[in-house]
Structures are given as structure tokens and as C-alpha cells.
């Protein structure tokens, strides 16, 4: 197990500030081209830092990612933010592998935010692995070549006579003489880095670190309670802030009893903060600073307790007319008309439905969902002399830097963002408003500020996974083959034209391209509640609707639901145009070419999960049933089977989950991978069983974990995980296990009770035995 840098306290990190890093002296460029899996092209640059003195030892720098101490400690930078996805362990593993480092001597550290050195640094889209796997192998291999060159030079021999068979050492192959990496570090740091395009990487069969289940590098700090997370940050002279917003989205304070609040014990100041946001209704991630009331305290507890006494007159604004109930009614009304626009039309659906041997109709609805990472939103900032430093648990540091720079009128180079470990992300920390609040409040007060939400604020002022409604119709021919498929999707818009953030659907959503006559149409309702990406965005909702309805269709066709899905995936299908992005629509973003959806890989995981779950081979008691679902998202192919038992009074108990996953040719850290898949499936179950944000007159009704319920230990079933290793690009696992979970659960409920779950979250009252 690698040691995390022992107790490098956050305070000390704060002290190091911006000057604590070496300056860029030279750049080496790498263009990695991994052909297999289809044209991954990554532009990638690795500047080389000057060696910097630090602590007791001189740390010698081989490149932006790797520093070696004379005592053999190898420090490896992890470029992306750690939010619980395990990236701070897995990316250093990739580098250490090609470096032939001794993992026991590796220290993983969070890299600073520096786009020139590290390229894109964010946690989202399950991209960190596919974007970095091949380039980081070359980063490690390049440094290894420098160490070998240093040893060869020291011995006066050619590098071809050296090897790194013993981790952490360069050995003279002929004599067995060896030098440790620490002993070579000074000399190696002066070697010319090889051209990363040319550097040789290992044959995967020789891997010693990649593919081994390794414990997370921060675990020793976590289990001893060391300061580590964003919320643990503190600065000398720091004050604490709570920032109260209008209960109605987009509303603003007109006045408040500020004098009374300021007189409370432990309260330093209280004032109105004017917001800065685009005109019109708020659009999730675009929000940088909302209007609100700030209370500054000597302690967070004092500032938060003052909220009990705070009386604000709010101008609630137009969103106060919106409620979940009225959206439900509007959606039903819209469903009986024609869609506002057609997303996709293949063949002739009307004709095919008219001539179908059997027509099936199904309606599905899902609610707004909050992310609720367990660590509430927070950030700490220090504004001084026209520059600001921010410490935050964030998935999106560069966006925060940009937003702060824009709002405070600073050059981005005067905004330093430090990524601290995040107590969960799930997409929520792609938003940056808490960072902006801390920076603005520090500027307004002239002291370092930590802003922290209480749970109610955290739940009530998110951006949410959007709700949605689907009205499906399908036609089967006499042999039970799916010949016609229609979805009228009723969703939301923030401005009357664009989709609300993450409320869209790609025209190639499965089974599009696999059914000859198919039509997807969309109608939109105006929404003032901010929405945005949540773990497996779009997919986490669409998976439920589409995979539930396909289950109905399979049963109507008299087919086994898994076989029906396999048959559908084996149907000759249309070639996509344009090529898909993560299987969910046209390609977005310029940084990566996505491989095409491969139906064979879908068949592979369905067959594997069928075998492992004992599907069709188990005798089940009454009101117990098994359900399956398959979903492709974020380049991962995941099939899940669940077994559930539904009590006579309608309570659902998940007995067991089986997962089959195909994420390519290599699992970097099987321990972390298993964690992501198990956690992802349970996340989907949790959403389906208990999570809904309801809106009443423009405000969120839910307040805390008593009315917004998350899955607990006594509800969590065993989860068995199987990997189907295929010769494809290595891809990420943070997200793709979520989308198949709700439909697998709901399909199992249908098998157990004969009742379809038409609406999430699952309402036990609809499942009572009759």
C-alpha cells in the first residue's frame, strides 16, 4: 500500500501558497495515439519543472508528475480531483507501473490546478480513466527511461544493458549491480526526457501494479480522522459564513432584520449580497452567485444558529407559480397532443403500429433528484491585494477559477484554486457557486472566509437531476419481433427553447437504430428550478424509462426479457451519423473521439449476468421475482439482474444484485472498480426506492435525510460483480453502473407482483397484495 504524505496539514498547504511550486522551464509534448477501440487521439503536454527543495530532502523532478527523493520516496501527482471515485489511487498506479516503482515507496499527491502542466483537470463523465490511461503510461515510461539513462551514464555503459526488473532499482543486467531510484534521482532529473511518442510501454502481461486490488492512498488518513476534506480547511484569522437564499428559486431579498442579527452572540456581520447571474430563469450550472443574505460569525455554529432569528422579506419572483403537481398535469395534457418537435424519425411508425399484431403502451415518470453528497457544499477563500486563493472540494476547479475571475474582475492567474478531497461529488461539485461565494464574501469582509451550507440549504439550493415523462408505444409482428417504437418525451426548458440543463435526450437513445420504424418526439415545459448533471446524467433517468418499457414489450412478445434484449442487440442496425458520444447522442467536446457503440459487448454482459445470476434456473417463492436491465453509458456496458421480495403491504426488499460489466481490456484497480460498481448499483436502488425532490410554489419541500431518504445498511443487498474483459479501450466506472439499477429493480418488482412501476420513486401503496 502506498503511503499518503503523512499529515501534510491543510494549514501548511495553505501556507505554501502559490509560490510553493517550481516554475515551468521546458515543455515536452506527447501525442498518444491508441488505435485499438477506434482512434483515440489525445494532445497532451508535460512540462518539466525545475527541481524544488522541500522538507528535509531535495526532491528531484523528472516531470510534472514525478518527483523522487534521495531516500527513494517517489511522489506521484494525481491530476484530477478525488471525489470518491478512487482516481487519486488509480492514476498514480498507472504511472508507477510504467516507472517500475515500488508501490510501497510511492506517495500520491493532489496536483495543483495547472492546465499547462496537466491538461484538463476535472472529475466528470467518467472521463479521467479513458483520457489519461495511455498518456500517463507514457509519463511513467519516460521517467523510467531517464532513470535508466542516469544509471547507464554512472556505470559508463549503454542503457540497453540495464533493466528495471526489481521495482525501484535500475540493474545492470549482466552483473546484477543495482542503483536505487533515490540514488539516481539527482542525475536522472538532469537527463533529457525522451520523446513520449517514441517511449516504449510495457506489455500488459508484465504488469505488477495495474490490475492489482490496492487500497486507496488516503485511507490511512481517513481512518485516523486527519484533516483532508474541503470542510477541514482552516486559515489564520478565518471567519465563518452562512449564506441564505430565497426559498423560491431566483428570488431575492428586499430587506432583513440585519441589526438584530448582528447583535447576536458570535455574529460579526450580516448583510445582503446582490447576485450576479444571467437574466432569465436560472440554468443550473450557469449560476455563479445568487442573491442572498450573508451572516458572518466567529464560529460556523454561531452564524448558523443566527438563521433561526433571521427574518427576510423576499421578492419571490416568477418561479413561485411552479409546482410538481402542475407539471404532472401539464405533462398528461401534452402527451395527448403531437410532440413539439421530432428528434428522430426512421421508417413509418404510424403505418407499422397500424399493421402490428400487438400494440403495447406504457407511461413512465421520474422526479427531480438531489445529489446530496454527504459533505455539504463549502469553500474557503482568502482575498488580498487583488488576488484570491480558494480551497474547495470541487469536481471542476478550472470553471470555479474562471467564474471567480470574471465576477471579481481578476485575471485568472490571480485566482488560485486548490483541490481538496471531496466528500462525494456525483456531479454536484461540477457547479462552482460555493467557491464564488467564499471568494466574494472574503473580498467583501476583508478576512479569510469559510462558507458552509447546512443540510437544508444544501438540499434546497442545488441544481437537480431533471424530472421527465415518457409516453411509449410499441408494435410487435406475429413472431414477436419489435417493428415499431415511439416515445413522446415530455421534458423541461429553462428559456422556452433550450432544454433545461441535462434534460435532453439523444436521438440515438437505444433502441433507436435497432428498430426499423421509430420516432422520438419531445415537448417541453418551462421550468425555473435549476437542473444539471447527476452521476450518469440523462442515462440515470432514461435507463429507467426505456429499460422498463422494453421489459413490458418483451413480456408482451412472450419472450424471456434477457433473450429479448439480446435478440434486439443482434438485429441489423443503422450506422450512426454523426458518430455517438458515449452512446447518448452526437459527439460533443473536442478532446476525444468516442468509439462506436458495439452491440456485441452488450450481448456479452447480458449473457454473463444471465449465467451468474442463475436467471431462469431459480425457483422463487411467491412475491419474489428477478428483473434485468442493460444500459450503455460513459463507454461502459453494464447488465444488472436483481432479485426482490415484495411484502404483502408493498414494502420492497432487494435480496441480491448481480452485475456484469465490460469496460475494456484492463481494470486498473479492481478494488476501486468493485467499489464503484457496487456503490453505483446501490445508488440507483436508493434513488428508485426513496428519492424525490418535490416543488411547491417554486420551493423545495424536502429538508434533510428524514424526508429525503437514502438507502441504509439494513436495505443494502449483497452485490456480486463480474467483469467481461474485452480487447477495447480502457474506460471509467464512476457512472455506468447507475442507469441499469432502477429498471432492473422495477422489472424484478413486476416479476414478483405483476405490477409495473410507472413512476419513481417506488410507492409501496401501489404494490399491496390484493
Amino acid at each position, binding site marked *: 500500500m502506498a503511503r499518503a504524505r503523512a499529515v501534510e496539514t491543510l494549514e501548511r498547504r495553505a501556507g505554501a501558497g502559490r509560490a510553493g511550486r517550481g516554475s515551468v522551464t521546458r515543455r515536452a509534448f506527447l501525442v498518444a495515439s491508441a488505435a485499438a477501440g477506434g482512434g483515440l487521439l489525445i494532445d497532451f503536454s508535460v512540462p518539466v519543472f525545475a527541481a524544488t527543495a522541500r522538507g528535509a530532502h531535495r526532491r528531484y523532478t523528472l516531470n510534472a508528475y514525478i518527483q523522487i527523493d534521495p531516500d527513494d520516496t517517489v511522489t506521484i501527482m494525481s491530476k484530477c480531483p478525488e471525489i470518491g*471515485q478512487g482516481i487519486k489511487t488509480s492514476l498514480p498506479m498507472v504511472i508507477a507501473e510504467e516507472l517500475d516503482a515500488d508501490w510501497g515507496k510511492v506517495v500520491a499527491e493532489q496536483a495543483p490546478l495547472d492546465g499547462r502542466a496537466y491538461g484538463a483537470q476535472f472529475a466528470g463523465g467518467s472521463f479521467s480513466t479513458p483520457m489519461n490511461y495511455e498518456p500517463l503510461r507514457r509519463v511513467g515510461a519516460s521517467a523510467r527511461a531517464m532513470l535508466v539513462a542516469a544509471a547507464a551514464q554512472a556505470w559508463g555503459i549503454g542503457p540497453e544493458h540495464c533493466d528495471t526488473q526489481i521495482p525501484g532499482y535500475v540493474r545492470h543486467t549482466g552483473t546484477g549491480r543495482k542503483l536505487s531510484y533515490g540514488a539516481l534521482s539527482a542525475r536522472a532529473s538532469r537527463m533529457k526526457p525522451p520523446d513520449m511518442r517514441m517511449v516504449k510501454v510495457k506489455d500488459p502481461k508484465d504488469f505488477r501494479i495495474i490490475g492489482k486490488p490496492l487500497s486507496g492512498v488516503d485511507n490511512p488518513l481517513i481512518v485516523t480522522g486527519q484533516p483532508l476534506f474541503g470542510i477541514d480547511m482552516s486559515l489564520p484569522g478565518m471567519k465563518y459564513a452562512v449564506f441564505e437564499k430565497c426559498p423560491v428559486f431566483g428570488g431575492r431579498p428586499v430587506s432583513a432584520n440585519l441589526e438584530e442579527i448582528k447583535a447576536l452572540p458570535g455574529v460579526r456581520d450580516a448583510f445582503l449580497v446582490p447576485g450576479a447571474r444571467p437574466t432569465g430563469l436560472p440554468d443550473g450550472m450557469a449560476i455563479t452567485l445568487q442573491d442572498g443574505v450573508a451572516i458572518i460569525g466567529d*464560529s460556523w455554529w454561531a452564524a448558523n444558529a443566527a438563521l433561526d432569528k433571521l427574518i427576510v422579506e423576499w421578492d419571490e419572483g416568477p418561479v413561485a407559480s411552479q409546482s410538481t403537481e402542475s407539471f404532472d398535469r401539464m405533462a398528461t395534457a401534452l402527451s395527448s397532443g403531437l410532440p413539439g418537435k421530432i428528434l428522430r424519425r426512421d421508417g413509418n411508425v404510424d403505418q407499422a403500429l397500424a399493421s402490428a399484431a400487438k400494440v403495447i403502451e406504457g407511461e413512465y415518470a421520474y422526479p427531480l433528484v438531489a445529489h446530496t453528497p454527504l459533505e455539504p457544499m463549502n469553500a474557503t477563500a482568502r482575498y488580498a491585494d487583488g488576488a484570491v486563493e480558494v480551497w474547495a472540494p470541487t469536481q471542476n476547479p478550472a470553471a470555479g477559477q474562471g467564474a471567480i475571475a470574471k465576477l471579481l474582475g481578476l485575471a485568472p492567474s490571480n485566482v488560485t484554486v486548490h483541490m481538496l478531497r471531496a466528500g462525494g461529488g456525483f456531479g454536484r461539485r461540477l457547479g462552482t457557486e460555493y467557491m464564488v461565494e467564499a471568494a466574494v464574501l472574503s473580498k467583501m469582509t476583508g478576512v479569510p472566509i469559510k462558507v458552509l451550507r447546512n443540510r437544508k440549504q444544501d438540499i434546497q439550493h442545488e441544481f437537480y437531476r431533471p424530472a421527465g415523462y415518457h409516453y411509449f408505444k410499441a408494435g410487435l409482428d406475429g413472431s414477436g419481433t419489435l417493428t415499431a417504437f415511439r416515445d413522446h418525451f415530455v421534458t423541461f426548458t429553462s428559456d422556452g427553447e433550450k432544454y433545461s440543463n441535462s434534460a435532453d435526450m439523444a436521438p440515438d437513445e437505444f433502441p433507436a437504430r435497432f428498430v426499423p420504424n421509430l420516432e422520438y418526439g419531445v415537448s417541453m415545459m418551462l421550468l425555473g428550478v435549476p437542473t444539471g448533471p447527476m452521476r450518469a446524467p440523462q442515462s440515470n433517468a432514461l435507463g429507467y424509462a426505456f429499460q422498463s418499457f422494453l421489459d413490458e414489450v418483451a413480456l408482451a412478445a412472450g419472450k424471456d426479457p434477457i433473450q429479448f434484449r439480446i435478440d434486439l442487440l443482434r438485429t441489423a442496425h443503422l450506422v450512426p451519423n454523426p458518430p455517438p458520444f458515449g452512446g447518448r447522442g452526437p459527439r460533443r467536446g473536442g478532446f476525444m473521439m468516442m468509439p462506436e457503440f458495439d452491440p456485441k459487448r452488450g450481448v456479452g454482459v447480458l449473457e454473463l449476468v444471465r449465467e451468474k445470476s442463475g436467471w431462469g434456473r431459480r425457483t422463487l417463492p411467491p412475491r419474489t421475482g428477478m428483473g434485468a436491465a442493460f444500459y450503455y453509458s460513459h463507454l461502459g456496458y453494464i447488465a444488472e439482474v436483481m432479485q426482490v421480495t415484495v411484502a404483502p403491504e408493498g414494502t420492497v426488499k432487494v435480496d441480491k444484485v448481480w452485475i456484469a460489466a465490460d469496460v475494456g481490456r484492463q481494470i486498473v484497480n479492481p478494488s476501486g472498480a468493485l467499489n464503484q460498481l457496487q*456503490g453505483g448499483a446501490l445508488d440507483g436502488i436508493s434513488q428508485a426506492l426513496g428519492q424525490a425532490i418535490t416543488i411547491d410554489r417554486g420551493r423545495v419541500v424536502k429538508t*434533510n435525510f428524514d424526508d429525503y431518504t437514502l438507502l441504509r445498511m439494513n436495505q443494502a443487498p449483497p452485490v456480486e460483480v463480474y467483469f467481461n474483459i474485452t480487447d477495447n479501450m480502457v474506460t471509467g466506472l464512476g457512472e455506468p453502473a447507475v442507469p441499469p439499477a432502477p429498471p432492473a429493480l422495477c422489472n424484478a418488482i413486476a416479476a414478483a407482483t405483476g405490477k409495473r412501476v410507472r413512476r419513481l420513486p417506488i410507492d409501496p401503496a401501489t404494490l399491496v397484495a390484493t
Partner: protein
Amino acid sequence: MSYTLNVNGKAQTVDVDGSTPLLWVLRDVLDLKGSKFGCGMGLCGACTVHLNGMPTRSCITPISLVGAAAVTTIEGVGASPVGEKVRAAWVELDVPQCGYCQAGQIMAATALLTANPRPTDGDIDDAMSGNLCRCYTYTRIRAAIKQAAGLPTADTREA
């Protein structure tokens, strides 16, 4: 008001309002950042500490009620052999994802195993269901508790 607490075996005097929850005294006065804030209402368990060995939600425990009780936090739980075993099992089985809930989980698990060295799955459910994990690491938490107890870690709640 001045209060003298016994935290991880050390006497600590703090000057705070008596209504201040123990959690915020630990975190922001004594600079023990291991106990976490999740809900502030006794609903998530992230703030769990031991008072005289009993698992307690420090977010809803006013400092005025703590008195001379022995307060044990995640920083000090390793002083007991059970706490040390639990910590080790957590690292060996790589339980944490984000890790934010895990201080509370470890405190709850240590209290369970101290009172009941060979818990059944039902005992684990009863003792641990007040501790939320938003990353849903429950399968590993269950296994790590069994490992710390020297029991087989396989999940025997067969479907």
C-alpha cells in the same frame, strides 16, 4: 461559559456557549477535524463519537450535557484494541469511497464490536443503519466489521 472536557484521555478546557454542539467544539475549537458534519439533526451518523463508550451523535449533543464523560473521537479510537482492529480492517478491505462518512462508521462499528464481539448480519444492520453512506459502501462496511471480528467476510445473506 467554560467547560472542561475529557477528550481522548486528555482534559481540555473550552470557553463556549453551553448550547454549542459537541461536534463544533471538537472541530472548530479543539481542531479535531475527524468527526464530520452531515445533517446536524442526528440523521446521518457522520458526527458519531463515543461518550463513555456509547455511540453518540455529537451534532445534537450540547456541550453543557457532556460533563465529565469520556469523549472518544476517530482521532483517539485506535487507543482501544477493538478500534485499532476496525481501523485496520477498513484499510485492508479498502472500504472508503469518498471517505466522508467513514469516521462515523468506524465509531459505530467499534462500539458494536466492543459490546458484541461476534455480531450477526442482523446485529450489524441494527447497529449501523443510523450511519448513512452516500457512496453506498455498505457491502464493504459489513465485510470489514466481520473481518475485524475475525469472522468470515463473505456475505451470507443469500438470496
